[in-house]
């Protein structure tokens, strides 16, 4: 875990009176490498906090964000690139974060022009630095990355491409794509002493990103605790657990019940879900606003948050090799557990009154009817164990008077056939659902 340099706390130097709102600003420079813009689209959907609230200065405890983002900017061309140049030159007059979306192509090998990913022109580059491209030729996105990262308070890689290389770095790629942390290398630290922060996912959950930025800024401002990052620079509270642990279908796995084909409701491991070995929080957090999430909707996990994505999880829609063993064990063990649980559920699904009356007076659950001897014996010992050392509600219940008005319509002799509905006709008994 990385040691961060804390800002002053709210009580440091507190001289009484109300605490003034933060009047500082933080610039964010957004760069795209080999990106699909999916990370941007995710962040535009983030809810906790919302991007627009951060930009409008509506989130107390953090500075107002001045966002330099190609998809959301007001200006184009040289006017848009001007603050990038100022940040590189150190004349911006305010601190900044660098955010990189998309993997990093090996564009620095193109000495004589050419690129896989470009933004701005040679004329936008700082005159104080050695020219990297002719004035009328595109600047490589990777030029801005190496130039901006050293002066940033933090460099954040968003999405699996920027964090680990992602699809552009998959087998067969011809662009030499890599992750931001590999590109900047082992010596890289931000001005606050941080290596690259990695918020993975393809696309990432937007809230994972805005939350991480907020936590970092709160820590820098002295208004929040130190965020914890794991040994790959991921926010530890977001990526510390496997996605399986919070999966709505994990209980099926425990009981050894598996989906046989897409669309089935059970655990998806046998149709290609890698959830048990993938670090992600989408089943807990949801895709947006605590809604959806891959397995929640029925989609198998393909490991899109992991450094090995995609090749180490390919072919998709094929059961992971490890699942033959773990799934097999789960079927034997879980199968037995499941049967015992169904027995307990049979008891739990009966009202105590039914046990005492030895019949079911309601319209539902009529087939539950009388309990057999084995069921009664099971229930007897189950209650013995359950209430041991405590109060035996079964015995207490036996002393209660049984209600006398059960099955009241029958007692009153009400003829349903004779009672006419206000509209339409009564459904015939043989048509009942």
């Amino acid at each position: 875990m990385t040691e961060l340099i804390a800002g002053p706390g709210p009580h440091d130097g507190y001289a009484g009176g109300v605490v003034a709102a933060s009047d500082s600003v933080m610039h964010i420079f957004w760069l795209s490498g080999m990106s699909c813009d999916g990370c941007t689209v995710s962040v535009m959907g983030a809810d906790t906090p919302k991007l627009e609230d951060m930009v409008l200065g509506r989130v107390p405890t953090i500075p107002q964000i001045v966002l330099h983002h190609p998809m959301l900017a007001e200006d184009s061309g040289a006017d848009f690139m001007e603050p990038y140049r100022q940040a590189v030159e150190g004349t911006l007059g305010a601190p900044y974060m660098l955010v990189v979306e998309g993997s990093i192509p090996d564009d620095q090998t193109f000495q004589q022009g050419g690129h896989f990913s470009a933004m701005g022109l040679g004329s936008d580059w700082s005159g104080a630095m050695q020219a990297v491209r002719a004035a009328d030729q595109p600047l490589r996105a990777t030029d801005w990355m190496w130039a901006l990262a050293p002066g940033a308070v933090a460099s954040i890689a968003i999405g699996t491409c920027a964090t680990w290389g992602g699809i552009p770095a998959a087998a067969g790629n011809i662009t030499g794509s890599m992750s931001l942390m590999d590109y900047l290398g082992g010596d890289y630290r931000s001005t606050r002493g941080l290596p690259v922060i990695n918020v993975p996912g393809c696309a990432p959950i937007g809230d994972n990103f805005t939350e991480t930025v907020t936590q970092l800024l709160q820590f820098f401002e002295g208004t929040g605790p130190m965020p914890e990052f794991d040994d790959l620079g991921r926010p530890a509270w977001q990526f510390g657990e496997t996605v399986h642990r919070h999966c709505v279908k994990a209980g099926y796995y425990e009981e050894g019940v598996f989906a046989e084909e897409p669309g089935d409701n059970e655990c998806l491991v046998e149709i290609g879900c890698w959830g048990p070995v993938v670090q992600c929080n989408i089943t807990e957090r949801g895709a947006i606003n605590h809604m959806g999430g891959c397995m929640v909707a029925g989609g198998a996990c393909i490991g899109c948050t992991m450094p090995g994505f995609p090749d180490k999880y390919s072919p998709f829609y094929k059961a992971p090799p490890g699942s033959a063993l773990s799934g097999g064990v789960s079927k034997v063990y879980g199968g037995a557990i499941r049967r015992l649980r169904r027995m307990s559920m049979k008891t739990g699904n009966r009202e105590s009154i039914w046990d005492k009356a030895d019949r079911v007076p309601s319209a539902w659950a009529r087939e539950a009817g009388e309990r057999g001897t084995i069921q009664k014996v099971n229930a007897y010992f189950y209650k013995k164990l359950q209430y041991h050392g405590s109060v035996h509600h079964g015995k207490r219940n036996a002393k209660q008077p049984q209600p006398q008005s059960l099955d009241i319509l029958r007692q009153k002799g009400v003829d349903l056939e004779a009672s006419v509905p206000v509209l339409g006709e009564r459904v015939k008994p043989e048509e009942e659902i």
Partner: protein
Amino acid sequence: MFAIPASAPASQTGGGIRHVDFDPVTRVAGGLAMHAVIDLDANEVREASSQATLFRGYEVILQGRDLRDAIFISSRACGVCGSAHSTASALCLEMAFGIQPPPMGITVRNMLVALESLADNPTHLFTRAGPDYSEPIVRQTNPEIWTRAEQTPAPGVAFHGYERIGDIMTALTRFSGELYEESLQMSRLARESFVFTGGKYPHPQTIAPGGLSSTLDPTQMNLSWLRIVEFIDYSLKVVAVWDDLVDFFYEADPRFREVGTGPKNFLDLGAWDDPLVYDGTYQNSPLWGEQRWSTPGAIVDGQLRTTNLQQINIGIEEFVDRSFYADWTGGGAPRYPTDPVGNALSPYHPWNKRTIPEPSAVDWQRKYSWATAARWDRKPMETGAYARLWATALANKLPHRRFLEPTGHSLKMAMPQSTFPETVLEWHAPENWGALERNRARAYALAHATLVAYESALNTYDFKRKGGPDAKVFTHYEIPKDSRAGAGLWGGARGYVSHHMTMDKRVIENYEILGPSTFTASPADPFGNRGPMEEAVAGTPLLSTAEPERYVDVLRAIRSFDPCLTCTTH
């Protein structure tokens, strides 16, 4: 046509002619630059060259991969319309495998793609194009128009609540405007609706060849459906806003009709399959194509040429004379001289294409873009949500008329009663085609997509209610061993999406993706035609009275296409 002297410096030349680089063009998706030659004396753009600044290698990475990887890899080419690409890829595999999803599977996929439009259309209209018509920009560039807007009543006040045009412009302000913020919030609502069955957004996790893997829990369907209903009122509001805004600009200065004009050439593959007709075969694609909720169509100079998916498919070609790729044809016979039913195929058709990148310096006279010059019948074509309206309206073949009714020159949309009483919207194919009409059409496309999402949701309930095999979401399949070809001819929020694949021995042999902006953001072709966006920028008048060198009308022209450069080049 390309009159720029080879020796012209990149910045200012003599006289009133100026070379201006918009690098990057912001408020578009992906990396786009525009090089324009501007005549400051005539206040007009003379030439324009559109440059895609990004190449990632998706098509190359897909070569030789397991077929089961196709959907999840190819759809990640675009982070805006992942569902459209996922479904295009599924259609492509279904054609190659010879399989057909059950009706419920088709219906839910339709709903997802419609929901994606509900997430994307508002963000185009209000976060990308909208700010160019907002108070701060209009005040700075055309103070006289702002003064007029402040005094002009807005006819659509009953639907959008703004008394005057100036109030609409204030609400369009970047980040702080009401309409800007509301579009982000409505986009969230559409995403929420989407993820109940799609898992996540923008890259969905449930679309599979043979249908999808969604579990369709009744609670999920309910939560999804209620969010769709909210778009009924919102569509009425958005249409009223853009109708008022567009009509106001025309009244204020008729020359706004000339911003971003171009020939009425439109290409759309249609979208949203009929669950009881779509069978996945190329042979029957003319039949199931015309049964879609939007009709496929190729329109040249305002005249509908065909609605036949096969005829549309065989007309597609890609040229790389101005692009950073090597020509793959090599003079020999193409690998596929004909399509599966015997129509002749060009060596430049996607089934015959190979992606061979050759990065080099930008040379406006030679090679300057990562985009290919995608053409239909060798003509530059506009694609987009508005091309969908054009084709559906002109063809007048739509079989699904519960809420939609084309007339041959317009498309009527019956918005069901929600807060407002039932209201019929009518989009008319306009006489003058340009930047403002593209945006107006996009607003009506939001209403169209809302109705498709709404009707699809009703259809999911109907299939569930009837039960049986039609209510299943997935068909089992075996991957064939022999050599096959497939095409996913489809559409997303921005219109046209196609995936062309050839396979052999259970792996992908070649995979070619075309998005809407592969056509619109394309460079010049070998036949002397500019790309549609280049054509729209060239000839655009510069109408700003206060800040002519801000070139706001050039940017309005570009953004009206809602170009998506990640869809353009892969």
